[in-house]
């Protein structure tokens, strides 16, 4: 079964996606955990999280973005420019960070030069940087706008019933992923970080009901699995986006197992449930604006630190890897203060800057991890 997860995680056009499209249904790309994918799903459209997997060049990314920009949006633009997202019927842009929000202009401008790469539905979804009553109201209105735009463009009606149905499917998904977490944090885990990431990645690339079915099966297999992971250093991964199971593998091959994380392709995407009572759209706005804060939400350092500490404690980690993609100041800077405060609490930390995309620096990563493991052994 793991092979199937891996295949979904490592290829852009997975079988489920292909089947979905063949049935005449649409798919919409979104870049970030602040997009309530339930709204898309309730329209019977496949929400597909944008990634830069499989990039082999940055020629297009570099043409429109400047030089000092995180390689994640650059890779996404590269794939878009190469037409590899042409299967998408729509894309949502989010001001996750400065680099991500500029994907809007860069993608549109690249479409002047590379014909046909701009999906018919191209929507900018605003997300406030703080939580107050008025910012929640504002975010609710943005969510409503998104719903109405989807309805208009795709000629569908998103009913409250469909929204409630989507919320329930997604909540189930989150509960299953939390169950997976429990298997990762066991004294002798039955799944490593690389495989867990493949499962999490699949949740963003295939229909959620199918995902739930698959995960239920995998969980029952894992729960009875005899073979466990022993004698490895237990690590936690924190920081910038990572959607590369290979990166986890490089770390784990050094003699470690990644047992938990606070990553956005990770626990941040499923650790909060949506309320199933009341106005479903408002419940979604509430859940998404409040969900485990990313550093793009300014001024929430303490809750983030607490989240790391709680997870680290639960997973009994031996150390934490605080990593950031070069030019990701949001994660990079906060990692500096995390290091200070976590080390004070006696949790060994290692800060690492890296590139997103094809693992060109696995030697350096390996060397740094080796040294860290030596330090904490």
């Amino acid at each position, binding site marked *: 079964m793991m092979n199937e997860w891996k295949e979904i995680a490592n290829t852009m056009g997975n079988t489920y996606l292909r089947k979905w499209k063949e049935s005449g249904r649409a798919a919409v790309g979104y870049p970030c955990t602040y997009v309530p994918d339930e709204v898309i799903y309730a329209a019977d459209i496949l929400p597909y999280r944008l990634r830069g997997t499989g990039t082999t060049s940055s020629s297009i990314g570099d043409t429109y973005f*400047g*030089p000092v920009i995180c390689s994640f949006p650059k890779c996404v633009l590269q794939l878009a420019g190469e037409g590899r997202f042409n299967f998408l019927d729509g894309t949502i842009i989010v001001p996750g*960070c400065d*680099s991500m929000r*500029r994907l809007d202009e860069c993608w549109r401008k690249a479409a002047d030069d590379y014909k046909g790469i701009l999906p018919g539905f191209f929507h900018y979804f605003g997300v406030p*940087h703080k939580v107050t009553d008025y910012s929640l109201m*504002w975010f609710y209105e943005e969510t409503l706008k998104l719903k109405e735009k989807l309805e208009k463009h795709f000629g569908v009606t998103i009913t409250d019933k469909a929204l409630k149905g989507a919320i329930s499917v997604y909540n189930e998904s989150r509960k299953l992923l939390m169950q997976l977490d429990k298997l990762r944090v066991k004294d002798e885990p039955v799944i490593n970080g690389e495989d867990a990431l493949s499962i999490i990645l699949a949740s963003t690339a295939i229909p959620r009901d199918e995902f739930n079915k698959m995960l239920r099966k995998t969980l029952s297999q894992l729960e009875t699995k005899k073979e466990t992971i022993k004698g490895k250093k237990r690590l936690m991964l924190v920081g910038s986006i990572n959607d590369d199971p290979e990166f986890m593998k490089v770390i784990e091959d050094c003699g470690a197992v990644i047992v938990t994380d606070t990553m956005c392709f990770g626990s941040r995407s499923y650790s909060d449930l949506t309320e199933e009572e009341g106005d479903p759209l408002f419940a979604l706005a509430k859940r998404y604006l409040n969900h485990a804060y990313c550093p793009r939400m300014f001024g929430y350092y*303490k809750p983030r630190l607490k989240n790391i500490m709680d997870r680290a404690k639960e997973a009994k980690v031996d150390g934490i890897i605080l990593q950031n993609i070069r030019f990701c100041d949001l994660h990079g*800077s906060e990692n*500096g203060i995390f290091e200070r405060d976590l080390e004070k609490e006696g949790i060994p930390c290692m800060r690492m800057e890296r590139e997103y995309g094809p693992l060109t620096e696995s030697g350096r990563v390996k060397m740094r991890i080796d040294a860290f493991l030596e330090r904490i052994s």
Partner: protein
Amino acid sequence: MRKETKEYNFDWNMWTILENASKTADGFRKEYETLLNYIPNYRNVLDAFVKHGEPGILFLKIIAKYSNDCVRAHIEGRKTAGVTFCFATPVLYAFNIQPVTLEPWSVLGTVVLKRGTSEFLDYCSELGFTETSCSSQRGSLGAYLCDLATKLDFVVYDSPGICDTNANSFAFAASYLDIPFYQLNYPSTLTDERAKEYHHADFKGLISFLEEQTGRKLDMEKLREIMKENKRQDELTCELLDLQRLKPSPMPPIYELMLYGGRFMMNGTKEYTQLLESMVAHTRKKAEAGKAGTTSGNERARGLFCYIDHYTTDGRLWDFLDKRDISHMGSILFNFWQKDSLYAAGKEDEGYNLEDESLEAIIDSLADQMSRMPMVKQIRGPYDAPGMWLDDTLGAINIMKPDFVVYMGTMGCRNTWGMVKPFVRDLEKHGIPTLYIYADSFDDRVQSWEAVADKLEEFLKIRKIIT
């Protein structure tokens, strides 16, 4: 950090330099000329102010006063607020709070000190603040983080939604120093009712925060006084803008720095009004004489700086322009969008109007002013959306009639580097020669001023702007 750097507080050290600099012109000419030999690191920029007579000297006095106010705030029982340059200061002055504006402090440091602010820039990185973040805050922030400056009581910033890099500096400062903070957060649109309501609600939150931090209510009397100055300053800046666009432009290149520098530090104070009055009077005289604002009185070209200027050691950009008889036609930093300003003609909904009737009206209008601050207005949304960076630059081109446009900023500027390439391409499509320079306006180590000057020179030659 070198031992000598730790000898004195950064802000105190700067204050003594600036205080003395502001007095240099008080003596005889000969004394002044002899004195210049003793200040090789900033004689050029000092002279650039002094040679402009009263306005330049007033500006020197303003920065001396500002630095003195920052250094003495606690002694005088005033709270200090770490703020960013695009934060309109009147509301802070109304609470008797001293704004400690990081970017002007970084400019002052990099202009005046021999090694610029490199040690403070690096100190931030030693603490974990990314070396790739914006140098405009980092240059002085290092001093505040390593306790070599007056302590910050809290932080208020208005960059979330505008510039994450900037907001991140203040978020980092608040977390690192464990001090209270308040963020004004902006949506990506400007003129719609939703955005307006959001601006107003957020600003009211700021007032409550400031009341909480100072333990006092907003002083209506004081607020009215500040609003009076604020309004007058808006009128004067509009007048100046009107003069600036003449051909030849009678406004000396360095006035640009004085305009926005003064505004970022002392908007709402009597001293800034006085400076503006003097600048208007002097510019008007030049206009009446039909002379350009350059030292020679001639204008060979007009340059618009679509983002920020270049400040490293001794502020040689202004000298570069002046020597070549190039008029400075403005930058994003002096773009304040009062409804009466030339920029806002026909786009009144993008501008703001300062009200002084009821408390409610004053507060809402201050919120409007804040939401139209440089950068806050133009880079909140896609650069090519109505009322954003491209629109405003094309508007400025239409009014100021520059011969060329230059983009320079900081290498940490994710926001503008994220889209500057297509932006420049769009400007060129509109027929305006545009240059973007890979340099850092606050950190010479990224690219030396000499290399920047060479690039500018080459561009002016190749594009036949100055032959």
